C-alpha cells in the first residue's frame, strides 16, 4: 500500500467501498462538523470534506478534516485549484499529510461566479489533472513542481471527480484516461440519475481498461422533492436528470416525495452495483446527512469493514 488510507486498504482487499460527504459550516462552530460526522459513524469508509463548494465561503476543508479525524474518520480532503496557486497547494498537501490526512480529492473547482464572492479573482494556476500529477510527484518522486526535493513525502491516496454526463461526451473517457495517466487512484463521479448514460460511459472506460487502473466510486444523491429534481435538471450545469424521474416524483403527494426520492436512490444503487468496474458508492446527501445511514443500510452496504 502506498498510503495509510482506509479506502485504499478496502479497495486492495477487493471489497466494495462506501463514502459520503460533509459540507463545512459557514462559521467557526466545530460542533456542526461533529454533529454531521456523528450521523456517518460506522456507515462509511471515508468522508469527503468539500472545499468552499459552489464558491461560497465556509470553514476550510483542511480544518474540518482534522475535526473528523479526531472523531475517528478517515477524511478525504477536497482541494480546488480556484483559490490557491502551486505554492499554497503544495504547502497544504504537506500540512495535511503531516496531520494524518490520508486522502485527497483533486478538483478544478466551481467558478466563483456561483458563489457569494462573485467579484473575487480566481487562481487556476494549475488544473485538476495537473494537481493529481503534483500530488503523485510529491509522493512518489519526492519532488516539488519546481524540481526541488521533498523532505518527508506526503502519503496521500489520490482521488478525483469525473462527470460522465458533461459535454463533449465523446472525450469524457479520454479525460478520465488523462487523470489516470496523471496518477489518480480513485474516482468519485457526479450524481448519477441517468443510469443508461452512465453505463455507456463505463463501457468506454472499460474499453480503455481504466477501471483496472483506478477505482470508480459511483455517486448518488437522493431527491428530497420534485422541486429539487427540477432544480438539479434545469439549474445545475452538467447534471442529467431523466424526465421520467421527475414525473415519478411529481406523481406523488408532497409528503411522500422524499420517501420516493430515497426509493429511487436505492434502486439506482442496486443497478450501479451490477455494473462491471464500479468499486464503490459515494453517497452525497446534500444537507440531508441523516439519511446516509438509512440508505446504506437499506442498500445492504452495512456493516462496513472495521477501521484499522
Amino acid at each position, binding site marked *: 500500500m502506498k498510503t495509510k488510507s482506509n479506502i485504499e486498504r478496502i479497495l486492495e482487499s477487493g471489497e466494495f467501498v462506501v463514502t459520503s460527504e460533509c459540507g463545512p459550516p459557514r462559521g467557526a462552530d466545530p460542533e456542526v462538523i461533529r454533529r454531521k460526522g456523528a450521523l456517518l459513524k460506522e456507515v462509511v469508509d471515508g468522508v469527503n470534506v468539500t472545499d468552499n463548494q459552489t464558491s461560497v465561503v465556509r470553514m476550510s476543508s483542511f480544518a474540518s478534516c482534522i475535526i473528523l479525524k479526531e472523531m475517528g474518520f478517515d477524511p478525504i480532503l477536497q482541494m480546488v485549484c480556484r483559490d490557491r496557486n502551486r505554492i499554497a497547494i503544495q504547502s497544504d498537501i504537506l500540512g495535511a499529510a503531516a496531520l494524518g490526512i490520508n486522502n485527497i480529492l483533486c478538483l478544478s473547482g466551481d*467558478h466563483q*461566479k456561483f458563489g457569494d464572492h462573485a467579484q473575487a479573482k480566481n487562481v487556476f494556476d494549475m488544473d485538476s489533472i495537473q494537481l493529481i500529477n503534483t500530488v503523485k510527484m510529491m509522493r512518489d518522486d519526492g519532488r516539488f513542481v519546481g524540481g526541488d526535493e521533498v523532505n518527508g513525502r506526503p502519503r496521500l491516496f489520490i482521488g478525483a471527480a469525473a462527470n460522465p454526463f*458533461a459535454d463533449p461526451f465523446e472525450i469524457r473517457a479520454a479525460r478520465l484516461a*488523462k487523470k489516470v495517466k496523471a496518477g489518480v487512484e480513485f474516482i468519485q463521479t457526479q450524481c448519477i440519475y441517468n443510469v443508461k448514460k452512465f453505463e455507456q460511459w463505463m463501457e468506454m472506460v472499460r474499453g480503455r481498461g481504466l477501471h483496472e487502473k483506478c477505482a470508480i466510486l459511483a455517486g448518488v444523491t437522493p431527491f428530497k422533492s420534485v422541486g429539487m429534481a427540477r432544480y438539479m435538471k434545469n439549474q445545475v*450545469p452538467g447534471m442529467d436528470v431523466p424526465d421520467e424521474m421527475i414525473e415519478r416524483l411529481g406523481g406523488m403527494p408532497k409528503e411522500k416525495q422524499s420517501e420516493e426520492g430515497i426509493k429511487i436512490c436505492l434502486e439506482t444503487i442496486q443497478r450501479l452495483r451490477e455494473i462491471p468496474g464500479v468499486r464503490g458508492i459515494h453517497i452525497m446527501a446534500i444537507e440531508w446527512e441523516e439519511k446516509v445511514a438509512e440508505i446504506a443500510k437499506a442498500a445492504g452496504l452495512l456493516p462496513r469493514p472495521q477501521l484499522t
Partner: protein
Amino acid sequence: MIVGNRKPLEEILGMIKPYKRLLLLGCNECVTVCSVGGEREVGVLASELRLWSAKEGQDLEIREHTIERQCDHEYIDQIRSFVDEYEVILSMACGAGVQYVADKYPTRPVLPAINTTFLGVTLEQGVWSERCQGGGTCILDQTGGICPITRCAKSLLNGPCGGSSNGKCEVDKETDCGWQLIVDRLKELGQLDQYEEIMPIKDWSTSRDGGPRKRVREDSRL
C-alpha cells in the same frame, strides 16, 4: 485589436468636475475600430458634455482632437503646441494610451473615458469577442488554434470541466465552452489524439504574473 467600453457619463462627469478647460483626446487605432474612442465617439462625448454643461449652467470649454495613436510618442507630440491651454486631458484611448499621454505631459492630469476590456476580434458589426490574454508563451499549436486560457472561464489546460453543457460554459449560457470548441476543431483537423496528451503546469512567468513586461529588439533600435 484592443477592445473597450465607454465609461458611463455620470462617472466621467465625476472625474472632470474640478476642471473648466478640457482636451478630449481620441485615438485612431483599435478604439476607432471597436467604435469606442475614435473621432466619431469624441464628437458624441463632447456633445454630451456640452449639453450637460449648458443644462447645469457650468462653464466648460472642450477641444476635440484625435491623433493617430496614443501609444506612440511621435503622435502624442502633435498636441504639445496647445496642450497647455487645457487643465485636463480626457483620453478616449485604451489604458496604454492614457498612460503614455500622461507620461509625456507630466503636469497635466490625464483621465480615462473608457474601460479597456480585452484583446479581441470583431464577430459582426457591433459585436466583439475576446481571443487573447497575452500569455507570452503561445500554445495555440496544441489546442487547435483556440486558446483555452482565454476561452475557458477557468483557463483549464487539460479539457472541459464538468460544467460544459450543450456546447456552453457553466458561467454563462451565452458563452461557448472553450473546450467544446477545441475538441470540435481537433476532430475536424483529425487531431483528436492530441487531446490525450497531458499539458504540463504552465509557466506563467512570461505572462503578467512575471511582472511588467518589456520587449527590446536590438536590431530595430536606432
